[in-house]
């Protein structure tokens, strides 16, 4: 594995090796006073964030630091990028500085693919436009496996703005590789034309899919979509597709509730659902994210998956 651009690039074995490596990373650090492994000492990881994302950027930063890599973070604000420097020039600059891996977040779908053609090091897609966010899917799968002890045959309902969601695309690809059954639920306006080719079932009815779900993952829905007539109002969206207490009651007893964050409380997820420690994995997802990203960097930068 040279780059991680799409969750679809991972074979079942590669995906499982990321999850297993993440588990080993976590246990290696457990109980340590100094939360650092010497694995990537002397290697340089560049975080290239053309789009604001404190949570993902911090998670990658921490992951690289815990592996003892040198970490440089370029944010769009205040760097040459905001002065109109092209993606290609930025890539060549990083190349000249000698980076071993570039973690890139960009508002344009496919920007990491372009970057991978211009740099020698590994490229990790940390979210590109409305395309993919493969490490999010990996951390979600990791979280599901931790909580429910399996992935094969797991019934996962993903509800929300599938059309604009990179999290949904990566999750559908990865979860189907890992043998889970995915159902996408959204108003028809927020499903892409062509979704029928995805390895997932599609439904417009959240209530019908909940009693059969082991996992329900709610996606962030931007209120601005209302202005573009994707749905009539935030209230109507929330009534039909929001995960509230009444809907959670329809879930099987051990089902979990996930959200990639940041959440619109009261819109796609009710506050009491997000904060329910028994079902909600929102906080775990964040801490699991660091372990999974450590595993990805480790495997890309010459670590062996044994």
């Amino acid at each position: 594995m040279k780059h991680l651009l799409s969750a679809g690039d991972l074979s079942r074995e590669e995906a499982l090796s990321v999850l297993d490596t993440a588990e080993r990373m976590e246990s290696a650090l457990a109980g340590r006073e100094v939360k650092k492994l010497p694995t990537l000492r002397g290697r340089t990881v560049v975080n290239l964030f053309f789009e604001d994302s404190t949570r993902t950027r911090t998670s990658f930063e921490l992951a690289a630091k815990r592996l003892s890599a040198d970490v440089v973070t370029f944010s769009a604000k205040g760097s040459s990028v905001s002065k109109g420097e092209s993606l290609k020039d930025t890539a060549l600059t990083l190349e000249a500085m000698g980076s071993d891996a570039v973690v890139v977040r960009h508002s344009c779908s496919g920007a990491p693919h372009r970057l991978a053609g211009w740099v020698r090091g590994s490229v990790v897609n940390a979210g590109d436009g409305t395309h993919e966010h493969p490490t999010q899917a990996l951390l979600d799968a990791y979280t599901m496996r931790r909580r429910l002890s399996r992935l094969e045959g797991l019934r996962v309902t993903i509800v929300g703005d599938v059309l604009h969601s990179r999290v949904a695309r990566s999750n559908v690809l990865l979860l189907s590789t890992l043998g889970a059954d995915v159902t996408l639920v959204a108003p028809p306006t927020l499903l892409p034309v062509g979704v029928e080719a995805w390895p997932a079932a599609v439904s417009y009815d959240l209530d019908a899919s909940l009693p059969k779900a082991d996992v329900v993952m709610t996606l962030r829905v931007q209120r601005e979509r209302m202005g573009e007539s994707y749905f009539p109002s935030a209230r109507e969206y929330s009534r039909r597709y929001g995960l509230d207490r009444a809907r959670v009651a329809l879930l099987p007893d051990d089902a979990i509730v996930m959200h990639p964050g940041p959440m619109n409380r009261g819109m796609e997820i009710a506050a009491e659902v997000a904060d329910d420690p028994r079902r909600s994995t929102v906080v775990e997802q964040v801490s699991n994210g660091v372990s999974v990203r450590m595993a990805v960097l480790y495997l890309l930068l010459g670590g062996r998956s044994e």
Partner: protein
Amino acid sequence: MSGASGRGRTDDGVEMAIWLVEGVRPYGGRPVDLLLRDGVVAEVGRGLSAPSGAHRLDAGGLVALPGLVDLHTHLREPGREDAETVETGSRAAALGGYTAVHAMANTEPVADTAGVVEQVWRLGREAGLVDVRPVGAVTVGLAGVRLAELGAMADSAARVRVFSDDGHCVSDPALMRRALEYVKAFDGVVAQHAEEPRLTEGAQMNEGVVAARLGLTGWPAAAEEAVIARDVLLAGHVGSRLHVCHVSTAGSVEILRWAKAKGFRVTAEVTPHHLLLTDELAATYDPVYKVNPPLRTAEDVAALRAGLADGTIDAIATDHAPHALEDKQSEWAAARPGMLGLETALSVAVRAMVETGLLDWRGLAERMAAAPARIGGLAGHGRAVAEGEPASLVLLDPDARWSVDPAASASRSRNTPYAGRELPARVVATFLAGEPTVLDGKACL
């Protein structure tokens, strides 16, 4: 006496060389000799003797077709001379076998006045490699709000007959109706870029399975078909000529077939790239494959080929759209849409239409020369390869195979989607009114 000295003479007294093209096969038929003199095919026969001093061209094995005519070329001058000029674009056209091109109006400034179209026309004359026919904008500044002075452009030295806001759709139905009516006064034609703008806001590629996977905003086929349906009805209602640019979907072909069956005066073009390439190429995220309208599906390609073969689509037009490197070496969404086409059009058409048995050479000549010349109102182009007809010809080697090298293009730009691809058929020579513009595959000027 003109032939005896090996020189001909044009009307205005300029001496012209005489050419004897030997052993060429018009439309792929039996080999003959063509004597080109005074801008016309003076004699056709076997074993013609060369007048003294005449140039001889051994054309054994080559196919002769009328010089190609492009209804849709972006020459970028004035305004983006870093991407193309009238001269560099003319050279690319001649090398592609063209003897006439229609230069689209979306320059900077826009070709929406007699002054700008005359400038482009004059630059074309100075380059002298193809007849450059300026297209006039339909609306002032391509803004789609009020009509440009269409009559002034028609009456200018450039004698504009094709009007288009290409790059933008004339989306206001009332304005489109008026434009269709108005150009009847000088037998003009409105060439519509069919794209309903509200349905394509932010659109990056064909809406469908591939776009859904790639997370790129979709450009639905219905956005093209809706405008074509509206416009054929308008053209039928007011009895005007309508030309539809770069038809790209199977649905558009059906609507055009219906409109023609109704007897509406509607013509249409398809680009070489829409006859060969599909939206799967977007998976590379390389914007060299970004074009407007976008590459569609294999089903659309099949329908376009069938429509071109049965005459529903009248012409192949390149939509040659040069772009500077920095406008293509970027993220997909930031890149400008468009592809080079002039130097590869004939080869791509041979691959898509001739090798597949859908068209023979005569059929190809109809779609790439005769029909576009008729639509554009060019009397001296697209005529038969026959005695007494204008000596604007292309000679091509049907058996040649060549690999596309962007760096070898005569265009100032490099954005060809065929880089590294092997294509059939190669232009060996092009004659414009009896004068060679290309010989041995190289431009003469």
